[in-house]
């Protein structure tokens, strides 16, 4: 029982991190109905950026975030301007293939630049924090807290600011929003900026306990997709709920049954959700 409780607590912590990774994917998907297959590649790049700031500039990852996040906001904005705006109204297949090509460029760009080796930030003497009686590594607790804060900030932004409301309007009906004078193009660019910035935030706080290599995007892309689909795509809170479910599922079933199959359970749950309730736990319209 003790073991299960530990697994549940660390599952929640891990789930919050997954949720932060999925946040940007969900935002872009919800606002523009574009699935960004290259989403997790930005995570990988942000982890490299944080790593090199630490390795070369002796900058602690926590302090690196304020540098990395704005840069990646710019990167997301630029991606939109150079590529995504040309495919917003293209056939679905063209959208899938464009971000698929982007995935190749970013992933193998990282391969060419950094090689296939694995890098991690090593911080000696890092302690643990007791969360509900369970000791959890400080860096993980920090990452989970940052995730919660990010979700709170985004929810507040969407609900209480004029720009946030305009963003929601653009998401719900592009043509009506245009007719009302909302700069939809700028809203889309903003959602890409915020989407990529949020996944960079996740990267900066992930690197202290997760090593980076050019191909980590594979696992995280599927985990992020699973979170978004499980919670309900197109809703920001869906990513949070989905991420938590994935974290709990992975840790609980991994502990109770077998750790080698933990991702199998997650992906099976993801496929089962697609089949039974494609709109997700919170969603209302499926197709």
């Amino acid at each position, binding site marked *: 029982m003790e073991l299960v409780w530990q697994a549940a607590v660390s599952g929640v912590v891990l789930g919050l991190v997954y949720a932060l990774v999925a946040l940007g994917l969900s935002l872009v998907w919800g606002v523009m109905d574009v699935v960004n297959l290259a989403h997790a590649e930005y995570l990988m790049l942000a982890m490299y950026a944080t790593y090199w700031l630490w390795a070369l500039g002796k900058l602690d990852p926590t302090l690196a975030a304020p540098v990395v996040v704005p840069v990646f906001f710019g990167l997301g904005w630029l991606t939109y301007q150079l590529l995504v705006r040309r495919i917003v109204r293209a056939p679905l297949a063209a959208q899938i293939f464009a971000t698929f090509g*982007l995935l*190749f*460029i970013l992933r193998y*760009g990282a391969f060419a630049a950094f090689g296939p080796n694995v890098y991690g930030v090593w911080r000696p003497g890092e302690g643990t924090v007791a969360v509900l009686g369970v000791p959890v590594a400080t860096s993980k607790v920090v990452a989970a807290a940052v995730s919660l804060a990010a979700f709170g900030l985004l929810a507040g932004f969407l609900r209480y600011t004029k720009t946030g409301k305009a963003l929601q309007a653009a998401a719900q009906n592009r043509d009506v929003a245009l007719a009302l004078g909302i700069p939809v193009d700028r809203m889309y660019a903003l959602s890409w900026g915020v989407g990529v910035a949020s996944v960079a935030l996740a990267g900066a706080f992930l690197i202290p306990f997760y090593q980076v290599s050019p191909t980590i995007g594979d696992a995280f892309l599927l985990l992020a997709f699973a979170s978004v689909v499980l919670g309900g795509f197109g809703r920001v809170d869906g990513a949070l709920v989905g991420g938590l479910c994935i974290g709990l599922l992975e840790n609980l079933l991994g502990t109770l049954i077998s750790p080698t199959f933990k991702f199998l359970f997650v992906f099976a749950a993801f496929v089962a959700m697609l089949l039974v309730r494609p709109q997700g736990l919170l969603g209302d319209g499926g*197709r």
Partner: protein
Amino acid sequence: MSRTGLWVGLGLAALASLPAWVQDSFLLNAMIHVFLLGAAAQAWNLVGGYAGQVSFGHAAFFGIGAYTAAWLLSRHGVTPWVGLWVGAAVAAGVSLLVGYPTFSLRRHFFALATLALAEIARISFLNWEVVGAAIGLYLPLEYRNRLAYLMWDSKPPYYWTALTVFVLATAVVWVVDRHRAGRYLRAVDQDEDAAEMLGIPTRRYKLYAMGLSASLTAVSGGVYALYVLYIDPYNVMASRISLLVVVIALIGGRGTVWGPVLGAFFIVLLNEYTRAWLGGRGAGTDFILFGLLVVLLSLYQPRGLVGLLARPLRQPQVAVAGAGGDEEEPPRTLPTEEVVLRVRGVQKSFGGVRAVRGVDLEVRRGEILGLVGPNGAGKSTLFDCLTGFARPDGGEASLGGARVLGLPPHRVAWAGLGRTFQGIRVFPDLSVWDNVLCGAEHSREGLWESTLGEAPEPLRRRAEALLRSFGLWEHRHRPAGQLSYGQQKLLSLAMAVLRQPQVVLLDEPAAGVNPVLVEEIGRQIRALNAAGLTFVVIEHNMEFVMRTCHRVAFMAEGRVVTVGRPEEVQRDPRVLELYYGR
């Protein structure tokens, strides 16, 4: 054809004789990879190119084929001649299991499900003791150099085996492309709802493409296992294989026969040689180029390298006497009293909005019935309920005595109901000719038949007559997307009536076109009616309605208020009040 045939024959002869004059083992190895990955890409092309259902998990099928053949041989001594086909069957089974439920969702979800499937397969095989878990399977070497076991200790026989698989996959795609199935798959890719409404059983075609694709991929994976003699989840189920297969088909040109062929040579040779030249460190550089190409092609040339190389082909003109366009309008026929479409108490609510509140309607054989009423009266929703695009909350409808309410759209079409949509719904990248032929009768058309045969002669003659009288015959080889708006409306009418349904529902046929074309569309509808077709027409253009319809039904607030001759309905005080607010 004969010139293409000549080139293909010469190319094949050159490829087949390559091992005779080249002994470079690196090149032969690279070519074997070209053929096997090319075959898998060609297989992917069926489902990802023609049917437009993007799979990122073909490594799972490749691996299933490799594992089945290897396991049967190493554990049970079963020859690969059997094992390859068992693998193909297993892969097809798995693919249908994934495809059946996900094909009813939007395409994102299918792509995501295949991504997850490949990951599930890899983790399972990595931990499954029966197939060697992480250690993998070794193929027993004592079977080598016997044709019965397809294993050798030199490269040339593998080269020819792999070439055979590649040719087989390409031939399958060529056959599909050349016949009805290819046309229907493209139609499904471009507008699934419109394809359904023409009676194409879209899910069946998608599953067909998927099953065929998975089994061809599995055969290629099986031969790969026989070639490398050792398999584990890292070499036959790696995501790298899924990605390479997609990239080959995309860069070469998806939805074309020669795209994956071109792509395979280009991508795999580049991949193998950069690996050799640059070593481990530079392994990724060619992939950066592939990514760039994929992005650029998705923006500017969806047909890939083939699209860049192809010149617009001039097809031979078929000279057949036609109906001619500008003849006298035939005399109006009088409808019979026989009720062909009977609608009783059909209801539909969206949330709290009761869009259709119990509609009763009788359509008589041979008439043109106008369906008019203010916006929001529920006219299009009624059409959606009748044709299976919306699930009605209650009521019944029968066509010629057979129940149609609640059937999926293609079944409704099979029962004899045709329909056009508001706006235009043609398949923009298909030629005008292919568009019309998508309107063939599909209810008794088997998959086998549609893969191996062309549309029957009487149907082709009818399609030609329709195109001629609609003035579209000269444009038959152009993509439908290049026609004017009005021409596309005429084309969608031709598609809906080709199979001569018992009743054709037209949703605003005259909306958005210029007055001359409105007149032309009206004339065509009346001519088709004179030839025996029954129409129900939603239309706001009252002049058009008055001139075209035998009877008019007036709908408001989800109900049919009155039905009668056009003049009567027009003068009805209830209609004046509800329509014009007087």
